[in-house]
């Protein structure tokens, strides 16, 4: 080796230092389990299902998809799912805003927050069970209605039952998320607006809402994806053969009643595409909103 090459080698910092400069060090290895997890349990099954959906039992490459979109019993499930997921998402997200606005100022916020979070810990099946008993024909609710002369109201085994369950299990999520976005808005901004003559309504529409829009969009995406894949409550509280025959039921039946995994994969792919389309739409709308810190200065 020449002298020049020697000095050059000496000048070059060791690999460790060079990696460190790019923020790669021992701690980076902690990403590996998570990456493996995603790869094995999400990317691989997804890719597998994608390929499988193009290998129908009979017919050509697109036979499954053609079958889905030519049979109203199948393609109507998309509509049925949207009819549940969109109103449920909107109700959950929009109602969470006024509730969070109020709770933000409460002194015993933790008590109420805990109360609202209980449905998350209960799980869908327990909620469904409770609703079936309480709102059913022999439940307290209907008996009370009969007693005051209104008569029976059908609230379970139909669209309403599923909707109620989606709201009960979905609202705590949207509420908590909205609350955390809301508490991220510097309260001095609203105070400043007040000293400048803005009344509560103007403060909400000019200051709070624009700064919250970003968070509400994310909240809607998460809430929508969750409600779109509704399965247990649609079966338990709805009319799984009728108006609440959602797309996940179609996928389930293809897979476990007809044992046509290829068809089930195709349904799952269609379902994923619908979710992706709505999420992209919401995120596209988000780009019109202000994105950045919701604080008033360098603080």
């Amino acid at each position, binding site marked *: 080796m020449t002298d020049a090459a020697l000095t050059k080698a000496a000048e070059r910092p060791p690999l460790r230092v060079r990696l460190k400069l790019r923020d790669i060090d021992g701690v980076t290895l902690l990403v590996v389990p998570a990456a493996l997890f995603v790869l094995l349990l999400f990317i691989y099954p997804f890719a597998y299902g994608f390929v499988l959906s193009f290998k129908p039992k009979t017919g050509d490459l697109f036979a499954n998809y053609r079958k889905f979109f030519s049979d109203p019993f199948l393609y109507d499930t998309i509509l049925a799912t949207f009819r549940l997921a969109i109103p449920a998402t909107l109700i959950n997200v929009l109602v969470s805003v006024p509730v969070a606005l109020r709770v933000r100022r409460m002194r015993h916020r933790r008590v109420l927050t805990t109360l609202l979070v209980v449905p998350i810990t209960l799980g869908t099946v327990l909620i469904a069970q409770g609703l079936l008993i309480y709102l059913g024909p022999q439940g307290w609710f209907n008996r009370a209605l009969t007693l005051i002369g209104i008569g029976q109201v059908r609230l379970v085994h139909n669209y309403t039952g599923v909707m109620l369950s989606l709201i009960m299990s979905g609202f705590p999520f949207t509420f908590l998320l909205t609350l955390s976005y809301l508490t991220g808005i510097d309260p001095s*901004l609203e*105070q*400043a607006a007040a*000293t*400048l003559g803005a009344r509560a309504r103007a403060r909400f529409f000019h200051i709070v809402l624009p700064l919250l829009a970003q968070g509400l969009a994310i909240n809607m995406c998460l809430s929508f994806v969750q409600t779109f894949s509704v399965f247990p409550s649609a079966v338990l509280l709805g009319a799984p053969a009728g108006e609440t025959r959602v797309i996940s039921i179609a996928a389930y039946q293809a897979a476990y009643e007809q044992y046509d995994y290829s068809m089930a994969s195709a349904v799952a792919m269609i379902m994923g595409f619908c979710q992706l389309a709505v999420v992209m739409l919401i995120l596209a709308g988000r780009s019109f909103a202000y994105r950045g810190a919701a604080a*008033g200065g360098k603080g």
Partner: protein
Amino acid sequence: MAIAGRDFRELRLDDMSRNFGTVNALKGVTLTVRRGEFIALLGPSGCGKSTALNCLAGLLTLSSGSIWLDQTRIDRLKPEERGFGMVFQNYALFPHMSVRKNIAFGLSMQGRPKDEIERKVDEALAIVRLSEQGHKLPGQLSGGQQQRVAIARAIVIEPPLVLMDEPLSNLDAKLRLEMRAEIRRIHDLIGSATIYVTHDQEEALSLADRIVVMRAGEVRQVGTPEELYGRPAHADVAEFMGYRNQLRVTAARAGNQVMIRTGNVTLAGSAVEPFTEGEAVAAIRPEDLEVSANGPVEARTETSQYHGDYFYSSGRTADGAELYFRSDRRLTKGEIVRLAADPARVLVYAGGRP
């Protein structure tokens, strides 16, 4: 200039109090502010000065007492009904609005016509010297510029009263000096009254027409900067105004002067009324305690810091009292010096504090 504070004669705070649970953050503050005055509320953290400001702005309700703008009682009004301009410590600029929109906000809330808003915003931007930055978002401005936007936003609605809550505390030392001059210039230009909260005595002294010194929720003294600097009414005010040497002494009258004794040191001072003989506190500024060959006080040097024109030194007397004084050369640790002070600059307060 067309931007001018709304006309009024005086703002009166009458026995204004505020409690937080069992804590009395504000205990009966009474003060009259005239139009055109620049008032500084000065005091250490937690003395209630920000509470007082928030009560004035309407962001906090009073527990008792009242606030009057001339003949109108305003303490029951919501902040949006008072029409006072407020500059927040963190500026509180709306991050999603351009500088122009921020400044225009108050005017558009009042429902002013578009062309008037445009004209007034232009003027306000000119006053704070930010005419070129109108289209930017607050996040794209430096701290000093954000501060000026906050001021423009508060004054453009032509408030009778501008409230400022430690507006310079987030700026660096150089910018702070610049903005200090700027704030006073803008105050003189628009002619409304300004109430300025600060914990920095230098800021209060240089900006204000009158200073209100607060401590533990009470007003301790109200006076011009000269009065407060030269003759603080209480030992604790003196401490806050830079009288760093506070000695426990025994005092006795001797003609026009007071003779004070601590340990084996005897010193002449002047009494601050009301004065009684006996236990007292003597307050001396470090600048007024100088090294002098025949000085009556003997001290052993502990530290000596370079301050440009002089050295700021500290030492202890034989009986352990700590003293801060000035010297014109660097003293070595352990060096024995003699110190003297003009009797007129040794203020003696009755009572046992501190």
